[in-house]
């Protein structure tokens, strides 16, 4: 380090105009378009997310978890089919990988969204971001887009990996339906992208990583399971309105393999969209009103 370095580099403006000393009128004018500003904010969020190791740990863990899950399910199914060849027609790739998404992958996505949306609220790290992008709506929009991108990539990649591993293990006994596999891969991607946005909204509202992950666990798994344990059919059915079961119905195309809801079809996607929109609205309002 050379502490005697002076500011000579500062005399040059980044644009090379040399008008470095003025703070007068004209300087700084030329507001970039809203779209370009959003693009820049997205670039910032991408750089921040991609430059953290934890991001890649989350992605890696999701992939590893799905690989292990698929291998385990594959071996189990292979055993079943060996014991009873008629069971081969009952093997559903979609059901098996969607369970892997439901039990494992979605929590990696929640963790990732929680980390990216709350990480800066510890130790006032949000200051530097908000100085660069003072419009908080823009920051949240950019963050949501990056989270959605990661969510889609993780959802689609893990599902594709799950199908691949299953095919390796039981492909000879139960062939893959290519069209169904592609559909499942895309639906998982969309589902995980929506969850990523949902928990970006939650994280922005609560500003706590642990709190966001806890809420994620409750909404996606804990609460619906408890509701389904209850003897009341009404309560049981209501659990389908939670994002976890509704999401699973959506990305498994109704072939979840366990009871989730009395309804199939687009209503489940609408349910997840509703939760996502609500979380984003609450997050945006909190972000806008509360001091950074």
């Amino acid at each position, binding site marked *: 380090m050379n502490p005697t370095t002076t*500011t000579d580099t*500062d005399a040059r403006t980044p644009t090379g105009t040399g008008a470095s000393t003025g703070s007068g009128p004209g300087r700084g004018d*030329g507001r970039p378009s809203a779209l370009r500003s959003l693009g820049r904010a997205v670039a910032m969020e991408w750089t921040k997310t991609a430059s953290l190791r934890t991001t890649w740990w989350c992605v890696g863990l999701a992939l590893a978890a799905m690989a292990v899950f698929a291998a385990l399910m594959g071996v189990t199914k292979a055993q079943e089919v060996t014991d009873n060849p008629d069971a081969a027609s009952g093997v559903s790739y979609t059901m098996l990988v969607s369970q892997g998404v439901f039990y494992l992958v979605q929590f990696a996505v929640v963790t990732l969204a929680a980390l990216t949306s709350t990480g800066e609220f510890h130790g006032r790290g949000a200051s530097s971001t908000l100085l660069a992008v003072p419009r908080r709506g823009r920051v949240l929009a950019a963050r949501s887009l990056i989270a959605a991108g990661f969510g889609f990539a993780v959802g689609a990649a893990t599902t594709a990996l799950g199908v691949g591993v299953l095919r390796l293990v039981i492909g000879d006994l139960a062939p893959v339906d290519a069209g169904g596999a592609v559909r499942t891969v895309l639906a998982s991607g969309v589902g995980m992208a929506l969850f990523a946005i949902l928990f970006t909204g939650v994280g922005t509202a609560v500003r706590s990583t642990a709190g966001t992950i806890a809420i994620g666990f409750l909404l996606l798994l804990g609460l619906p399971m408890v509701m389904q344990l209850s003897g009341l059919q009404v309560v049981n059915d209501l659990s389908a309105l939670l994002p976890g079961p509704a999401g699973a119905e959506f990305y498994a195309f109704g072939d979840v393999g366990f009871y989730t809801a009395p309804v199939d079809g687009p209503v489940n996607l609408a349910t997840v969209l509703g939760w996502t929109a609500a979380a984003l609205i609450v997050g945006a309002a909190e972000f806008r009103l509360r001091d950074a």
Partner: protein
Amino acid sequence: MLAVRELTKRYGGTTAVDALTFDVRPGQVTGFLGPNGAGKSTTIRLLLGLDRPTSGRALVNGRRYTDLPRPEREVGALLDGGAAHPGRSARAHLLALARATGLPRRRVDEVLGTVGLTDVAGRRVGGFSLGMRQRLGIAAALLGDPGCLVFDEPVNGLDIDGVRWVRGLMRDLADEGRTVFVSSHLMTEMQQVADRLVVVGGGRLVTEAPMAELIEAWSHARTVVRTPDPGILADRLRGRGAHGRRVDVEQGRDGGLRVQGAGPEEVGDAAHRAGVRVHALYREEASLERAYLELTEGTVRHAASGSGAPRGADAALARDGGDGDARRDRGRRAERDDGRRADPDGGTGGTTGRDGHGQDHDAVEEDR
């Protein structure tokens, strides 16, 4: 150019910033001085749109920070540490900020060079020393080559070399015509760099003046004399100066008299002529540091709490006046002090002793 107008920020019942009004002009280093908890950081955060004011305005070049079209070109700020994620490298941190504002990648390398962090740019911020983190924060502030720079306690955690570097940097930035606004709780640091001072205490403006003016007003020598008969000596000294100088006598809180305009020789001679016994007689150099402490002492919120210790003259004064503001307004306090001393019994009122400034302040608080 920064402008703060009637700026107020309340957190529940506490008022962190109280109707603050001041300007920060280009081409100078303006110091923002006040004790810890005086509202400096809050004011800066309000100025930068990070917190919302309860009332009043804080403007950068005539606009709110959040309304600036290209904020990075107008203001750069170093805020209290921890602004960079510990898991990110210094370069990635700056690169993210550069991308947010459309600045080229080479600008990141430039500012890394300016602050002397080029060699460690790839290392994660979590392993940085406090001084290195301060440098990184300064690099972020310089990134957009802004016309206005705001530094919140920039020398915190820096070694001597670092402190001198920051001083030089601020000087250079101001000499280039930029607006430089730097906060500190250290008068000695401000003396080194500031052309102008904005002094706050308890969220309020204490004074705003050029440094030279404050040095003129604050640093002067006084003669302290301790005597069992302060009233008699004070009457003798008052109004008479050797060379036509005006002599001011102030009744000290410890029972001593503080005399301005007369040296120890004159005071000693006067005491001799009056037949007054003298227990101590010495010259006291009032430093800027001391003047600053006196100005802001009454405003310190988190002073060590008193335990029913004897209450000094100030507490009694505030009680008499029934006005808590007296403790913030030194000018008014001095006036009243004079008034009190005109009262024949008043002369001994200050002899009850005093354990510490904070205790007096607490006494005032209890009385309110």
